[in-house]
Every structure is written in C-alpha cells, then in structure tokens.
C-alpha cells in the first residue's frame, strides 16, 4: 500500500513536472532573501567589538557551513528511501545533491580559511571541526566518483546509497567535535534552548541569509537534478516528448 503510494508520487516524470511549476518562485524568493541578508549584514549591521569588520564573513561562512551538513542529511534520507523502496528518483536526487553539497562545503572551507587569517593568524589548523568538514568535502567527492566508476548504473545507485547512509555518522562528529575536543573553533552561538550569544542586530541578517541560502541551494538542486534525470532517462518516451 504505502510503497505503491511512494512509487506513484516519485516517478521522475511527475518530479520534473511539479518542480517546473515551483522553480521560478523558489529561486527568485531565495535569491532576494540572500541579497537582503547580505546587504543588511555587510552594510548595516554593527561592527563587532572584538573582530572588527572581518566578522562579516559570518554571513557567508555560517550558512555555508550549516548547509554543508544539511545537504548531506538530505542525501542520507534519500539513500534510505532508495535502499528500502528502490525508488529511482531518490538515487537521482542523491547524485545531483552531491554536486551542490560539494560546492557549498567548499565555500564553507574557503570562507572559514579566509576568516582564519585575521582571527587565528593562520588559514589552516588541524582542528577537529575543520578537519571533519574537510573530510565531508572529500566524501562528497568520493560519492560522486564512486557513482561514476561503475558502468552499471543501477549497481552504482545502490552502492552509492549504502555509502551515503554509512557516512552519515560524520555529521554528529562535525556537530559535536567542538564540544568533544576542546579546539580553536567557535562553538555553537545559535542554540534553540537557551537563547543566543549573539546580538540581535547581527542575528537577523544572519537568519535571513541562512534562509536565502537554503532556498537558493534548493533551486540549484532542482536544476541539477532535472538535468541529470533527463540525461539518465533519455531513452524513455516521456523525456523525448518533454524535450
């Protein structure tokens, strides 16, 4: 029952049709939010007492770092779905999300490194969180290459999914590393329970950029998945009539 339900609403065809409707709104809205967040953050938010203006890279670094992990989390859910119900669409989404994930993780690493120069005096440290983020990045690449290395695509889908599911343990390690190993890196400044350690005038633009970044990434993901689906299923009738 449930599985037939899953299958009906997860055909690549209906996915492409549905996302086509929503894509313009999501991408436009996301882009605007991101723009607002950044302009607010860069131009209007107050200067930091300790770090001066260099802290402003937070509006790039923190959203990027958050989504570096969230994208992976999304992929692992897809992977479970693919393994349990053999939903093809889920595998397609993993493959396309991995590209987006690799990109955003790279941005997180890069922005962090730049930020490190004025604040820590070095652009690289073998700190647990930084290292595990680097490994997350390598893993995105690994997932993409693993999939690319098999000529039998269904086999590749399955193996990739297993890898993604197992790799999910890296996420708590990144999250908790700052607490487990006393390190250089900042610990969480935005927490749900006990308020925040950051001034609201800096917080609002940060939240807005996080939202904007999320929607922008979703629209990027939609684009790349659509492209991937169309190439993967290029022999199917619906694709030929669609194109």
């Amino acid at each position, binding site marked *: 029952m449930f599985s037939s339900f899953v299958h009906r609403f997860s055909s690549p065809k209906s996915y492409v049709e549905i996302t086509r409707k929503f894509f313009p709104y999501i991408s436009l809205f996301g882009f605007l939010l991101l723009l607002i967040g950044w302009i607010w953050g860069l131009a209007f938010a107050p200067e930091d007492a300790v770090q001066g203006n260099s802290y402003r890279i937070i509006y790039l670094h923190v959203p990027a770092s958050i989504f570096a992990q969230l994208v992976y989390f999304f992929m692992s859910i897809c992977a479970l779905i693919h393994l349990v119900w053999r939903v093809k669409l889920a595998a397609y989404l993993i493959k396309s999300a991995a590209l987006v994930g690799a990109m955003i993780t790279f941005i997180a690493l890069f922005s962090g490194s730049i930020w490190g120069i004025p604040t820590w005096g070095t652009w690289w440290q073998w700190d647990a969180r930084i290292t*595990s983020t680097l490994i*997350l990045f390598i893993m995105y690449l690994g997932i993409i290459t693993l999939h690319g290395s098999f000529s*039998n695509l*269904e086999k590749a889908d399955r*193996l990739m999914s297993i890898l993604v599911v*197992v790799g999910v*343990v*890296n996420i708590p390690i990144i999250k908790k590393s700052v607490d487990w190993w006393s390190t250089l890196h900042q610990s969480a400044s935005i927490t749900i329970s006990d308020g925040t350690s950051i001034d609201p005038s800096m917080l609002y633009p940060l939240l807005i950029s996080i939202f904007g970044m999320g929607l922008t990434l979703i629209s990027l993901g939609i684009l790349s998945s659509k492209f991937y689906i169309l190439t993967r299923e290029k022999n199917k009738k619906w694709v030929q009539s669609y194109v």
Partner: protein
Amino acid sequence: MIKIFQSEFFKLRKKLRTWLGPLLIMVLVLIAFPLSIDISQYDLNRFYFSIIVVALLMISFLSTEGIFLEDYEDGSLEQVYLVEQDFYKFVLAKVLTFVLLIGVPMAGIGSVFSILNGISINEVPKIFFMMFLSNLLLFNLFAFGSSLSINKGAILGVLATLPLALPIIILLGRGVRTIQHGIGFEGVMALMVGSGLLVASITPLIISATLKTHLE
C-alpha cells in the same frame, strides 16, 4: 560458522604475503622513523607513540585493501552465496581472521615498540588491549570500504570510511594519554569495547549487502 572460520583462517595463513607483509612493513616503519630524524635533537619518547598510532592506521588499511578481491575475481563469492544465501557469516569470519592474524600481531608489535620507547612494562597489557580494539574497529571499517569498490580498489572506500577512522585514532590517542597520566582509562576503554562490539557485529551486515550488489 566454525567451518567457515577455519577455511578463512587456513587460506589466509597460506598467503604469507598478505599477512606477514604488513607486519614486516610495520616493523620497518617503526625502525625507520627514529632513523629519519635526528634523535638527539628531540625528545623521541614524547611523540613516538603517535607514530605507532599512524602506522596502525596505515597498516590496517593496507592489509584489508584486497580483502574481498580474490574471492570476487575467482568466482568464490558466487559459490558462497549459493550455499549461504547471504554473506554475513562469511564476512564475519573473514574479518575476524584478518584481525586475529594481522591485527593482533600488529597490536603486539605496537606494544613492544612502546616499551622500547618509554612506556612502562606494567602498562603494556593496557596498551595492547587498546590497540587490539582499535584494530578491530579499523579492520571492520576498511573492510567495508574495500567492499564498496571491490575491483576498483579501496580508494573510494577509504573516503567513505576515514571519517569513522579519525575518531578511532583520536580515541586511541586519548586512551594512551589516560595511561600516561594514570587517570580516566576505564572510561575510554568502556567506550572502545562498546563501539568495538557494535561495529564488529553490524558492519558484516552492511558489507554483506554491498557484496550482494556487486554480484548482481
């Protein structure tokens, strides 16, 4: 299960290169390290242990790299599947064999070299046990890695499993410090025993699924 284990043990024992090779390299590395630096200049004892840890990491990777390759290529995997219908027991036996024939001696070598470099003899059983547990964890992880990309080499697999290997390494490093400082050893140990048992029993399940996919 006993039969499968015996078979695996017999096969590995016959492949001198697969099990003795890594051990020899380990010894060599542990000897080569002090030679490659100016010992008088630094306090070797203080960081020699990290070398042992890194060697443990590399050697366990090296020795599990082709763990399923031979059986995949010569058709044995299919025969196992026909009899067992899955690979759980087979994988369990194989990984255990590797741990026993390579992991345990490795832990032994590691412990001996840590005596040579300043750990007191009383602490050696602790060190040995800790290294053994790390090897158990590492071998399982890398076996998974190598099952992912059987015939493509374990590179891709390493990518997958290294995030998991790093905490093990960190844990091992911390464990050693608890020994040196004489405090907190039991906590680290309990954590390692727990995760060791968990990983050693669940990983074969995952590997089994991976191998089945490869046969398709």
